């Protein structure tokens, strides 16, 4: 009785698709996610039914990010590429230098208070330009909160889509970036060249 085969992968994939569809119909799919390969590595994209809630770099550890989403948003998470097809396509266009902004609904559920205000301002910094942390602090009505702006950028749950990479130091040096400084450099160079 040791020869019973494991159910085959294609069968399980079909059942998974069917489950995703049924869960969506029943309103039980709280979080959909997929990954997408980009020039700066594999990104994890996650969305609630309100919009994109998380973009994560590979270096953050995608399993860890999913665990965090389970704790903070909902454990009803399924791999559902379809709900994120539009963002995946727009990211392709962005990295090809053919898109200046993202046109998808955003869910800011992971950010509150001042950090949420900072993200709201970052969203309107134009493509190809930068602002200093101090300028962002002024723009959000709290000129002394330069360090807090830095923290808000460093904890941005929606990097690239909410362009925290467009915030640099007053002296023009890069400052920090969750995805690594080389990634920040790559994004700024991409936008400068387009």
């Amino acid at each position, binding site marked *: *009785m040791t*020869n*019973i*085969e*494991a*159910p*085959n992968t294609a*069968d*399980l994939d079909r*059942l*998974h698709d*069917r*489950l995703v569809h*049924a*869960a969506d119909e*029943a309103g*039980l799919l709280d*979080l959909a*996610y997929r990954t997408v390969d980009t020039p700066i590595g594999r990104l994890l994209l996650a969305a609630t039914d309100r919009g994109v809630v998380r973009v994560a770099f590979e270096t953050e550890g995608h399993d860890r990010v*999913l*665990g965090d*989403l*389970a*704790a903070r948003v*909902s*454990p*009803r*998470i*399924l*791999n559902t590429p379809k709900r994120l097809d539009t963002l995946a396509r727009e990211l392709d266009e962005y990295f090809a230098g053919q898109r200046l902004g993202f046109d998808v609904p955003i869910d800011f559920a992971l950010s509150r208070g001042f950090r949420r205000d900072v993200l709201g301002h970052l969203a309107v910094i134009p493509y190809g330009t930068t602002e200093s942390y101090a300028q962002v602090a002024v723009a959000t009505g709290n000129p002394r909160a330069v360090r807090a702006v830095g923290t808000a950028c460093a904890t941005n749950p929606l990097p690239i889509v909410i362009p925290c990479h467009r915030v640099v130091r007053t002296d023009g040096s890069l400052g920090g970036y969750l995805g690594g400084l080389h990634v920040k450099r790559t994004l700024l160079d991409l936008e400068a060249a387009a």
Partner: protein
Amino acid sequence: MTPFELIVREHGPTVLRVCRAVLTAHDAKDAWSETFLSALQAYPRLGADANIEAWLVTIAKRKAIDVIRTRARTPVPVGDVPDGASELGIPDDERGEVWALIGALPDKQRKCVAYHYLVGLPHSEVAAIVGGTTDAARRAAADGVAALRRAYATIPGGTA
């Protein structure tokens, strides 16, 4: 909590095996889907120390019983399976004959074999699911496996 996607990936094959051990291949897929949809709904309220596999198997068993009840006139596939149109196992499953043999076992033996040997639940937990004592579950599983060994040895290419 563990993201539900990982629960599906980790336990999906086991739940399908359990469903296939007690249902036709087609019905097993329906029961699998019903099981995970129902589990997804209840999952956020599940206790942190819950045995996820035992929980899923309990749901799968309930769903399987639902299916069996709706198929009351043809409760379980047993006996001869027509050539070319087997509902037991999938066409590319090399060991489809094993599923046919499992399908031919008496009801309690089949479940005790499935839950203990396929799922790996201890006999005490199998007893809690199928009813009766731990000893009875152990005996039914052992009898089932012995019957399978005997039956498997009689089919071409089968070695016990």
